[in-house]
């Protein structure tokens, strides 16, 4: 289980998270929604200790992440797969080596690494691309390799940072299906950060709306779709008249 408890985080004078609290239950996929720049990715990075809270704490399987010793943090990270917004593949390495990177860290035998790389690439429908370099792949393919790299670790949790941003609708739908397939086949708990409502409804068991640095509402997909909260309604319906309100609210967060 992943628990955010009253997390505050600022960058200079910009207050991004202001008492963010949320529970992600084992086995569920939690979607965190919010406007661009609202702090969704910031919240996600706290789970793997890439960022430390100014106040509050993030707990993963009973361990408070920012209090862990370096070795304990590394052990925790080995159980969490992170899919970055632009895949963050190491461009000096082939696709196969990128996926094998985390497995080599776990000191697995080379034949098992080879097997797991093949399995992960098959799962994202990219079998046979082991020897290609990231620069030779399209944006959608790179994202799928990023997912394969995370899945190959056989983690307990998968974290997705804007997995469909910047993709055409068909490729975005393919990525959504991959996330659903990964959860169904591997039973991994997930946290998905996005502002793509179609993706949120497809992959999410529950959805949390991050607004002004706090969780505005959390509920099942049906509960969010039927919400009466004006801020959440405006966001999920993507109404243009809401854009000014959103800008103003983000301005308040920053002030």
């Amino acid at each position, binding site marked *: 289980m992943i628990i955010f408890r009253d997390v505050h985080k600022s960058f200079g004078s910009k207050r991004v998270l202001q008492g963010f609290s949320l529970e992600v239950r084992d086995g569920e996929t939690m979607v965190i929604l919010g406007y661009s720049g609202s702090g969704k990715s910031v919240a996600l*990075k706290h789970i*793997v*200790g*890439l960022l430390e809270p100014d106040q509050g704490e993030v707990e993963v399987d009973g361990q408070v992440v920012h209090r862990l010793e*370096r070795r304990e943090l*590394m*052990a925790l*990270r*080995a159980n*969490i*797969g*992170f899919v*970055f*917004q*632009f895949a*963050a*593949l*190491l*461009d000096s390495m082939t696709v196969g080596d990128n996926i094998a*990177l*985390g497995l080599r*860290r*776990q*000191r697995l035998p080379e034949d098992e690494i080879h097997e797991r790389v093949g399995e992960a690439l098959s799962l994202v429908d990219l079998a046979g691309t082991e020897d290609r370099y990231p620069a030779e792949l399209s944006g959608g393919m790179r994202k799928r390799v990023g997912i394969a*790299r995370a899945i190959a*670790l056989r983690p307990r949790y998968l974290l997705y940072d804007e997995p469909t941003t910047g993709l055409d609708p068909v490729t975005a739908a393919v990525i959504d299906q991959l996330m659903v397939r990964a959860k169904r086949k591997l039973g991994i708990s997930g946290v998905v950060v996005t502002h793509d409502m179609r993706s949120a409804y497809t992959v999410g068991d529950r959805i949390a709306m991050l607004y002004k640095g706090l969780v505005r509402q959390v509920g099942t997909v049906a509960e969010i779709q039927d919400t009466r909260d004006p801020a959440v309604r405006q966001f999920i319906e993507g109404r243009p008249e809401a854009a000014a309100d959103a800008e103003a609210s983000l301005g308040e967060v920053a002030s």
Partner: protein
Amino acid sequence: MYELLAGRVAGWLAAFGRLGYFVASVGRALRDVGTWGSLTAGQMRRVGVASVPIALFIAAFTGIVLALQASYTFTGAVPLYFVGTLVGKTVMLELGPVLTGLALAGRVGANVAAELGTMRVTEQVDALETLAYDPISYLVVPRVLAATVMFPFVVILAMAMGVLSGWLTAVNLLDLSTAEFVRGLKLFYRFKDVWFGLVKSASFGLTISLVGCVKGLSVDRGAEAVGRAATDAVVVSAMLILALDAFWAIVLL
């Protein structure tokens, strides 16, 4: 005015503190041999072997110029075989290590800063962390070790090339025989001339790679910041090379 000065001093102290913390992290990461061990040979090739041509090019022309300028200065006043003395001493003690160091500050320092800066802005460094790697062990230690170990090898080749080109210039363009050039070369030669240059070049390699890594990993966002990091890495490294050059002269000579 006073506030501005105080702010500047505080900024320098903070930068010095960050550098100290970074160096301590590198020291701690040295224990993680399993990570950096397999990556260091590749960096030695990139940092060391690939730098040999530029180092030899600079050394060759330095040797030619030294021989000609020595002849111009000595003619009529000092025996011409002192051309060998001046070429040998200058190349080994000063110009071999320092000119090579300055050239490699551009070649290696800028390359390291730009590469790590790009990795930082494209979240590749974060990706390494989420895969349970320490970026210092994976990215910094191999580059720092490679530069520290390989720079002396590059410089010793540069020293040899400088003396060789000085000799070729002396026998072909000046009225000097090989025996006279070698006589001058051996006249005040001490083994310390060589190891002093090599100690200096190892310290230059360490400095250039550390500065490049610090600047690269400090990049926050955008292509402009990557460019600035590369420029800063070259400028700071060049300044530190000259400061270190003076430091070693005071301490070891």
